[in-house]
């Protein structure tokens, strides 16, 4: 091992940086800190005791040092708890994603089985089977892309190239793109907009990903006849976009975690839908990276409205 490496190992800051942890949550920093405090306190208490022989002062110093050590130790425990929690989240996530991947994989496998079995298949049936395979395949691609985006956001932050974007144009294009899917799920998407909505500065790919995620969610969580209303409003120095659906809504207990990554509804058994639990995390990163704000309100069985505001250039 060369000197560089030894130095790296011993330097708590670089250790903490490597794992991307704040130093006040990082055991590699907090342990040596706690140790140094103890040594300094012991030595200085000795000198102070020799200098001023009054026991009250010494007792006071010992008590305050002990209090300080309790705080540092508390931080260490918290740090470990955080690490354990992240670890658990990751394994849960691996579980959920593998399950999410398994469904389209099974779809492809079984559709091929079926095609093999059908001897005289008509060309119409053949096309239908191929559509099924394609749909499953698309779903896998989207899931893997979301995963890669999240990994990238975590490692290097979001790389955004802001440009002037007219939101009404983007939304109109999306409504056309979603026409087929929306019809298939018996959902109508409308856009209400004020006349002169100025352009906003945002990354083109980012806003497209965000709008896709929000519209996908609105369709996905709406049963029976759906109505998705998108509104564009100019609000002083920002443009506000609202996406309202009349879907199943977000349960109270889930509201605070909705933008966290890997989060899916508490009870995935009942609320299983296609999804990775990454869409809204990506959406939030895009908006906040562009100095905007994002939020939502929701009532169970009534519907959900997601909104975001972006500064006008």
């Amino acid at each position, binding site marked *: 091992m060369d000197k560089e490496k030894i130095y790296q190992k011993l330097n708590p800051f670089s250790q903490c940086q490597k794992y991307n942890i704040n130093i006040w949550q990082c055991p590699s920093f907090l342990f040596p800190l706690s140790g140094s405090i103890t040594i300094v306190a012991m030595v200085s208490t000795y000198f102070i005791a020799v200098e001023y022989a009054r026991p009250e002062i010494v007792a006071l110093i010992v008590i305050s040092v002990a209090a300080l050590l309790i705080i540092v130790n508390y931080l260490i425990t918290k740090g470990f708890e955080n690490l354990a929690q992240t670890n658990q989240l990751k394994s849960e996530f691996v579980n959920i994603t593998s*399950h999410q991947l*398994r469904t389209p994989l099974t*779809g492809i496998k079984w559709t091929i089985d*079926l095609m093999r079995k*059908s001897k005289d298949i008509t060309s119409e049936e053949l096309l239908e089977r191929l559509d*099924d395979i394609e749909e*499953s395949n698309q779903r896998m691609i989207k899931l893997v892309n979301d995963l890669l985006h999240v990994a990238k956001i975590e490692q290097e932050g979001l790389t955004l190239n802001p440009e002037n974007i007219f939101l009404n144009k983007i939304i109109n294009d999306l409504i056309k793109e979603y026409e087929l899917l929306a019809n298939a799920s018996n959902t109508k998407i409308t856009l209400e907009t004020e006349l002169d909505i100025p352009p906003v500065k945002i990354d083109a790919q980012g806003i497209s990903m965000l709008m896709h995620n929000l519209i996908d969610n609105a369709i996905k969580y709406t049963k029976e006849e759906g109505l998705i209303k998108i509104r564009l409003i100019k609000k002083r120095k920002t443009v506000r976009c609202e996406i309202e659906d009349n879907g199943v809504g977000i349960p109270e207990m889930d509201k605070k975690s909705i933008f966290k990554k890997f989060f899916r509804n508490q009870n995935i*058994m009942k*609320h299983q839908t296609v999804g990775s639990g990454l869409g809204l995390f990506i959406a939030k990163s895009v908006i906040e990276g562009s100095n905007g704000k994002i939020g939502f309100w929701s009532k169970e069985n009534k519907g959900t409205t997601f909104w975001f505001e972006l500064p006008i250039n």
Partner: protein
Amino acid sequence: MKKILFIEDEPTLQKAIGRYLEQEGYEIENALDGELGIEMAKKDKPDLILLDIILPKKDGFEVLKELKEDEGTKNIPVIILTNLESDSNVEKALSLGATTYLVKANYNLEEISKKIKETLSQ
């Protein structure tokens, strides 16, 4: 003709199994969620039920429990067909009275059809 009820919320999987088993000479009925599944099982009295675990409205365990508690449906064999894989789930399903527990991704339709045939002939 033997009647099979498939309780599954994924249209692609429903279609694939449904068409395959129809060609094998079974009559297939589909239910898209747990509640509907229970209702159809009670009404139509199928000869066998294929049951997913992750389902809207009522999950597969709840469905299984209700089916086994009902006099009219408790003797219908239930094969769990899911992509959830864990020993605790298998144990839970079997203790609730499921006949077999199959992980979807690990079986092709021929093998599933064979399991159905075996179960029906028992």
